[in-house]
């Protein structure tokens, strides 16, 4: 909602028409003469060679999958193999145009794209660069296997081809010598030094990642373009549509420095089937995916549809799109029509299409047609092409032998190294700035920032020297702690960007970001469309490229809108890349109250359940700033929970108030906010303050001394201080605002039971909200845990308190009945 853009009712209501340009379909019409000018005979043969390599690679996989033998090499591959036989011309045509700075993201069916892009990179890199890449990658472990096995001894490009094919195949066969030590597998293989970015087993998963990579290039002024490869089936996926929309948002050209559009090409390999569902005629209404561009962008995303069976037509189209992107006219959309002649996977019996249809496409085979053309126009003799084919078969047989050799290509030994995977779930690094040597772009010195000045006048502790509470307006609040940590990092790390809904101008719905608009240019701090999947997914792509990013979802309830991006992308890529990728993302989510069933949920349990995410939930300004500093200094994805109940709360615990300087609060360490001896109250998030209130009542009314521990972090979490407390008190209640069933509180209760069983005087009690919808504010006391509920639960489940009368029913009978009813 920039004020510079005036929405004028006079203009809004003027009559008129929206017009569209024609969308080109199969308009490639270059003559042989024109083509000869564009391509040398070597180029033409290289195109043929690359297509045949892909064809042979996938034929080999198919043979292994179906017959467990390829050219005498026997092997059983239980893993997936989604083949793209028939689509080789599309992949090679695209990759032909790309430089090493141009990067591609793909899908579960991307073997062809990996090989095409890899061969293109090998062609374009000089030998020294190429050898250095191979030597340095995973300490040369892949190079060691293939070096010396090349037919032209010592030929670097020959070694590199073997390196590429072996690295990909060993990855598919889950070998430690694969590109990602076998942890990615067939559907996720990638090799960043060649510009091959992660391929995604989630349909359309490449689109938000590619969007983030394009943001990285745009915001950090990096060379090259980004391509998101996905199929026509993925055009039904929300994150893909969100990403196209976000990539085209007006502000990039109208409000951002320079006005260049995002350098991203959404490339649809339209093979007509999303597994078995036929997009044209059955599961979609767009007919051709090229039509979609008109819905997202004033330039229709320069969309067109080309014949993917002609590699030269694809090269022509991608070359033009690339130029548009380099000219700042992105985003672009290209539909490449193609066909897979094999099934979705080897188990696919093609029950959704006729044998005649498959036959017709095999007859139109792009490689055969291209070979015929080369011979016909005299660029090559048939024998020459046969020689190329034979050498590829020899190469592939050798690669297949190497990749199935358990000595040369071992699997991860989890007997010997049981922690091999544990060790890569998080990178656990501290990197102050993701790119050194480049000054962060800011609009003013930090000390001139109005918010910074305003905070300077605030009391950094909640009480004055007489112990009197400082008024809300004058106290340094939790939101100020977050702001301080964030603005500090913006002035330190040039790659840091932040976005989300209503971040700029508004300053975030809860004023954490107030002051950042003045400090930062648009490309570092902007409003995203209401596209949670694209917001989080693009952060993942941004981080893959080496940037640091803070994205915000306003309400924790919107986690569901970005489910795949949080659970499958943000959480998994560090480990799936065998630690090659870093994921320095802070995802801010805010737990509401007073806002009913869809805006008041604490979903810590959902994020804590997924391996690969760090989850924190600070409840004090000191902890908020310290944990945000720690999260922003790290290289791991952190889901940063905040509570709308306490954005304005002052620091009540840390002596001397919140330090002005930099400090970190170590993630995973719970904090004893009040010492006690009779019972432990472990709180998550904002329930800290209700826990303290309950402790006051227990002390004053019943003479029971409660120790109150603030969990602060959920993943990681150090149980030792809690166990120590339980050894002392023998009793513990764990309180949080999440619905109780399968909550973090329940998980902690189960763990504490295991760890401290012999010290317990009663089973640990988890107290959360009821397993209901959140009712209206006026009824919230029946839903969330308040001090009376905490005391009732202690009284009924842990230690009966003399003189206390419960108003809640926590009896086993009641709880069992509720469970029977799903409540």
């Amino acid at each position, binding site marked *: 909602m920039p004020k510079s853009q005036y929405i004028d009712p006079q203009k809004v209501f003027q009559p008129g028409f929206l017009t569209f340009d024609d969308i080109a379909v199969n308009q490639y019409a270059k003559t042989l003469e024109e083509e000869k000018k564009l391509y040398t005979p070597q180029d033409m043969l290289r195109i043929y060679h690359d297509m045949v390599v892909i064809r042979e690679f996938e034929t080999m996989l198919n043979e292994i999958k179906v017959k467990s033998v390829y050219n005498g090499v026997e092997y059983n591959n239980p893993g997936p193999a989604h083949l793209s036989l028939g689509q080789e011309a599309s992949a090679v045509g695209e990759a032909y145009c790309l430089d090493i700075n141009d990067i591609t993201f793909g899908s579960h069916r991307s073997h062809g794209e990996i090989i095409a892009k890899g061969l293109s990179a090998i062609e374009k890199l000089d030998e020294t660069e190429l050898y250095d890449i191979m030597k340095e990658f995973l300490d040369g472990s892949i190079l060691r296997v293939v070096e010396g096995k090349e037919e032209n001894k010592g030929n670097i490009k020959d070694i590199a081809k073997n390196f590429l094919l072996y690295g990909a195949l060993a990855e598919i066969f889950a070998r430690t010598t694969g590109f990602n030590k076998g942890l990615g597998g067939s559907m996720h293989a990638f090799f960043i030094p060649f510009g091959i970015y992660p391929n995604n087993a989630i349909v359309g998963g490449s689109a938000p990642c590619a969007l983030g990579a394009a943001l990285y290039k745009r915001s950090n002024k990096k060379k090259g373009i980004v391509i998101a490869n996905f199929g026509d089936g993925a055009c039904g996926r929300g994150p893909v549509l969100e990403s196209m929309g976000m990539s085209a948002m007006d502000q990039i050209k109208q409000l951002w420095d320079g006005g260049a559009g995002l350098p991203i090409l959404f490339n649809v390999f339209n093979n007509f089937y999303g597994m078995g569902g036929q997009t044209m005629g059955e599961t979609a209404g767009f007919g051709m995916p090229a039509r979609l561009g008109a819905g997202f962008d004033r330039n229709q995303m320069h969309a067109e549809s080309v014949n993917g069976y002609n590699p030269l037509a694809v090269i022509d189209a991608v070359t033009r799109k690339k130029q548009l992107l380099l000219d700042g006219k992105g985003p672009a959309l290209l539909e490449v029509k193609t066909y897979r002649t094999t099934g979705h996977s080897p188990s696919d019996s093609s029950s959704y299409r006729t044998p005649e249809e498959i036959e017709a496409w095999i007859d139109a085979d792009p490689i055969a047609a291209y070979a015929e053309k080369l011979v016909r126009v005299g660029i090559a003799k048939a024998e020459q092409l046969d020689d190329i084919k034979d050498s590829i078969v020899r190469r592939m047989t050798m690669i297949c032998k190497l990749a199935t050799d358990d000595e040369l290509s071992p699997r991860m030994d989890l007997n010997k190294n049981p922690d091999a995977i544990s060790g890569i779930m998080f990178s656990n690094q501290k990197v102050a700035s993701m790119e050194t040597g480049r000054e962060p772009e800011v609009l003013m010195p930090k000390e001139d920032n109005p918010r910074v000045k305003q905070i300077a006048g605030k009391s950094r502790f909640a009480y004055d020297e007489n112990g009197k509470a400082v008024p809300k307006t004058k106290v340094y609040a939790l939101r100020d702690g977050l702001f301080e940590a964030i603005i500090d990092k913006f002035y330190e790390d040039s790659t840091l960007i932040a976005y989300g809904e209503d971040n700029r101008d508004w300053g975030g719905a809860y004023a954490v970001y107030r002051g950042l608009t003045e400090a930062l240019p648009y490309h570092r701090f902007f409003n995203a469309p209401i596209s949670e999947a694209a917001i989080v997914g693009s952060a993942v792509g941004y981080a893959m490229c080496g940037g640091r990013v803070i994205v915000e979802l306003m309400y924790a309830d919107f986690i569901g809108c970005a489910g795949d991006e949080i659970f499958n992308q943000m959480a998994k890529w560090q480990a799936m890349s065998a630690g090659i990728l870093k994921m320095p993302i802070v995802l801010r989510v805010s737990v509401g109250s007073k806002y009913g069933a869809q805006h008041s949920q604490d979903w810590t349990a959902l994020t804590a359940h997924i391996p690969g995410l760090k989850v924190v939930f600070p409840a004090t300004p000191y902890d908020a700033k310290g944990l945000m500093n720690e999260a922003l200094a790290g290289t791991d994805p952190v889901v940063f929970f905040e509570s709308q109940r306490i954005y304005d709360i002052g620091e009540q615990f840390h002596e001397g108030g919140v330090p002005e300087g930099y400090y970190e609060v170590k993630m995973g360490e719970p904090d004893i906010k009040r010492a006690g001896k009779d019972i432990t109250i472990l709180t998550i998030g904002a329930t800290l303050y209700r826990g303290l209130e309950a402790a006051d009542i227990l002390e004053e009314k019943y003479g029971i001394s409660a120790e109150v521990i603030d969990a602060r972090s959920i993943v990681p979490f150090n149980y030792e201080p809690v166990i120590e407390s339980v050894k002392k008190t*023998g009793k513990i209640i764990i309180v949080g605002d999440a619905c109780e069933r399968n909550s973090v509180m329940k998980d902690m209760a189960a763990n504490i039971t295991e760890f401290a069983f012999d010290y317990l005087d009663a089973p640990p009690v988890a107290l959360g909200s009821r397993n209901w919808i959140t009712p209206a504010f006026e009824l919230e006391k029946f839903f969330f845990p308040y001090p009376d509920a905490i005391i009732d639960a202690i009284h009924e489940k842990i*230690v009966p308190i003399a003189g206390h009368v419960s108003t809640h029913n926590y009896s086993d009978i009641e709880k069992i009945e509720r469970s029977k009813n799903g409540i």
Partner: protein
Amino acid sequence: MATVVIMPRQGQSVESCVITELNIKKGDTVAAGDTLFSYETDKSSFEEKAATDGTILELFADEGDDVPCLDPVLIIGTPGEDISALIAELNRTQAVDVDTAEIEAPKPAAAAPAPVAASGDKFFRISPRAKNLAAKTDADLAKAQGTGPGGRIIERDINTLLDAGYTLPAEKTDDAAETPQPAVAPIPEAAEFEDIKLTNIRKVIAKSMHASLSDMAQLTLNSSFNATQITAYRAAVKEKSEQLGLPNITLNDMILFAAARTAPNHRSVNAHYLDDTIRYFRHCSLGVAVDTERGLIVPTVFNADTLSLAELSSQAKAIIKEAQSGSINPDLLRGATFTVTNLGSLGVESFTPVINPPQTCILGVNNITYRVKEDGSAYPAMGLSLTFDHRAIDGAPAARFLKELCENLENFSLLLAK
């Protein structure tokens, strides 16, 4: 009029007693003052004498039986007397559980909701923490009143038991059944040996001493001090005690006095080691090891550090006498924070006394030998052997205590002035 003879309660902490000897059988006539039966607690033994003349009309217990205190043992009356009403009455009153009658439910629980599953549900509910505490303190779980949710016995219930002194009597488990037997040696001629069942006291001593040595990390420091002053003081007192109305203060009394005054300055020697905590005591309650016919008994002089030498001497004498006669109140056999044992009178020059758990130290007193000073003159040196539990105390602090104790004994007149 028939009278019921009950098992007396010898002290608040005693739950039951074992009848060690039954002098009568049903139908015997007895005269007032006759010994009816002998019985013992885990630490003392007693005799029950007939209060009236009469005939034994009914006998409820046998030799070796463990009879709960206040339960009837026998009825004395006149032959032919109808005692059925009396027996019926006994049955009725006995049905009143000793637990409810004797254990005051803790005050908070009185107001707490009634334990739902307490009646009719025989399932034994106890928290792990309460169970551990009970095991550590020998609390008698059978007497516990669960006040937790669903009648669960929780930590505070064990503390209630302990406050009321309900600890387990000597174990009556048949260890032989559980522990593997050593290889059977050839049985010698019957005349060559005599089998005598262990007394309860022997069993308790055996268990306690074995547990002490197997559970603790014990070691002993030996030292000696110049006993010139205390022997002179002893001589002076002996001469003047009657004249001054003082008790006969012995060397042992002086050592007790010095130990009681010195221990509180070294809190780790005046402490109980309780597994994961150490309980330090402000005052020193002295255990005094006494050799009796029935075995070792260690009565306590409570808050010995607050007593004058004369008071301490009198009290020690009294309890030693009671211990030796077997009439000591069992309540006086617990609660010590530091123990002194003396084998010096038997000529022992050095030994390794065994700690009485959960205490952390025991001081052994040796005899006086003569040592030579640098100038060649002899002086009387009295040996002290301090065993300590290295789990609770390190060597140096223990040695510091011993050093201060020796200094205090060497300068006894100064200690008296403090």
